[in-house]
């Protein structure tokens, strides 16, 4: 159990590093979802299945989705602004 937990913690550290070093936002969000899933596994082997279930739904699905939607919206606004600046 101890080895499994330590291994997972190491994996989480690696995936956190990968998220920070990823340049493309879409890839970053997919990595973020994987990072959330690793946390769900960690909570599960620490015998907290309730937290694990919440973590799967929130950390691996809802949070990346919200980030993705918010980023898409911001990109649109940035595009519109740059287009308006070019016009005059």
């Amino acid at each position: 159990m101890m080895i499994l937990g330590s291994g997972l913690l190491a994996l989480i550290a690696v995936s956190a590093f990968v998220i920070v070093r990823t340049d493309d936002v879409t890839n970053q969000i997919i990595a973020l979802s994987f990072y959330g899933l690793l946390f769900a596994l960690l909570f599960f082997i620490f015998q907290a299945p309730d937290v694990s279930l919440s973590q799967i739904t929130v950390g691996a699905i809802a949070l990346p989705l919200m980030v993705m939607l918010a980023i898409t919206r911001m990109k649109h606004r940035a595009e519109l602004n740059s287009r308006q600046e070019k016009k005059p």
Partner: protein
Amino acid sequence: MSERRRLLLFLFGAVGLAAIYCTGIRNLPPFGDYRGPYGDVIAQLAVYQRHATDTVNAITYDYRGFDTLGEEFILFSAVTGVALLLRPDKEERKRRNQQQSNPASFQDRAALSETVQVLTTALFGFSILFGFYIGTHGQLTPGGGFQGGVIIAGAPMLLYVAENFEAFRRILSHPLIELFEALGAAAYALVGFVALAVGAPFLTNVLPLGKTGDVFSSGTIALISACVGVEVAAGFMLVTFEYLREILAREKNEED
């Protein structure tokens, strides 16, 4: 500031942080060590006192139900804030009314693989059923209203992935999910007032506890869990709805 000085300043900060961090973690209790008495006491008593075999939910929705009520309203106000920020202005509303008179004018452009479409459509019903199962069995097994609610809210998102926003909008009524979000949050507080009405403190578990292990047991725990499920499902659907509508309305504007 020169590069050399900046590096020196960084080193100064880094050494200081490392020193504080090391003294901080030196006196941490060993891994997996638990000192407080409350966890052990509740683990012993919860099943007898509340007839709920999942102690975690007995704590969340009963022993510390007032805290959960606060958390519930954090989510509620966050969702309300998003809905308020993304509300369509007058001009947009007018444009949208015109759009509705010509429903075929806009379609999502994403091309999808058939595998994704078939899988997500097939999973739609299962995810709703699974969400209801998780949400209604929180007092017996791991899960509960929050988890079940998010799973149910995931079902229309699957439909959006499989089809398009039109399909998503056709199965969700915007005023209805707004109403359910408010009803879920209000119902939680009302369950608390039921206890006041019979002369007990706020959020006391006053309903009959039933037989341990039954779905209809543990009194208000199952009821509050269901209220939370309604609120969370409607809240997540509402946020997704608002964002998608906003993004697609912008795309439509650019096409014109």
